[in-house]
């Protein structure tokens, strides 16, 4: 049996809240049907929703790329936005610069980045003020769901 190819899809995220959350539903639908455990799909969807809400809140536009490799899934969120000046401070639970609008939707309480970190196995964030932010997360696929070796 041959090793399966990498499955990859990129989803565009628009700034603003009209469709905020759409991409997380699309990612969940995209992953369903690839013989992945439900709780892994759920974790990918959770971190995607938080990343998506951040792009909608703080950037003009961005995109999220999900790659399914044999042993893990990566989720990369890249935006053209205001960027983060103090990443250490931004990672503190409860620290937030969110507007009332974001808070009215049930987000913006300073938990987004910590949720992304909590539900991923590896979390990396780089940012440049005035340019944008890149978040890359990795979630392991349990051994019993690895493809058989040829």
């Amino acid at each position, binding site marked *: 049996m041959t090793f399966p190819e990498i499955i990859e899809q990129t989803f565009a995220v628009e700034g603003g809240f009209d469709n*905020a959350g759409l991409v*997380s*539903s699309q990612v*969940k639908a995209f992953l369903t049907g690839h013989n992945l455990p439900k709780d892994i799909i759920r974790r990918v*969807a959770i971190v995607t*929703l938080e990343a998506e809400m951040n792009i909608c809140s703080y950037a003009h536009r961005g995109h999220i790329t999900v790659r399914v490799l044999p042993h893990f899934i990566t989720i990369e969120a890249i935006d053209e936005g205001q960027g983060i000046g103090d990443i250490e401070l931004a990672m503190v639970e409860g620290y937030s610069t969110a507007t009332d609008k974001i808070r009215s*939707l*049930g987000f913006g309480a300073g*938990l987004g980045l910590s*949720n992304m970190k909590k539900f991923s196995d590896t979390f990396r964030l780089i940012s440049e003020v005035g340019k944008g932010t890149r978040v890359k997360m990795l979630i392991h696929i349990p051994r019993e769901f690895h493809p058989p070796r040829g």
Partner: protein
Amino acid sequence: MKLQEVKDILDAEVIVGNDLLNMEVRTAFGADLMSDVLAFAKPGSLLLTGLTNPQVIRTSDVLDIAAIILVRGKRPLSETIQLAEELRIPLLTTKFILFEAVGRLYAQGIRGCIEKVGETRDLS
């Protein structure tokens, strides 16, 4: 307990999912902060909330929430109803405040999806 019983206990109105009242539910989570719902709610649970925007449905979809109960007599936005229909997530509304709604459900056997943060709950 069937969702139909939840509806009766809370004297709730079904906005979406009249055909889904047969589903079984055992656990629930209540919050208005969706980041906390994402962090703590478990699949198959009820979500009790006072928020009415479409992000409540998105959050529920991501987590495989069984059904959403809007408390304090909240009416959902039309986009919210549309999305709940599209994703087939039951949406109910009750006039009870959150405290009363969860108390009444707990008294009839529904339990929190977790008891304390950092613990998992064994309901088997």
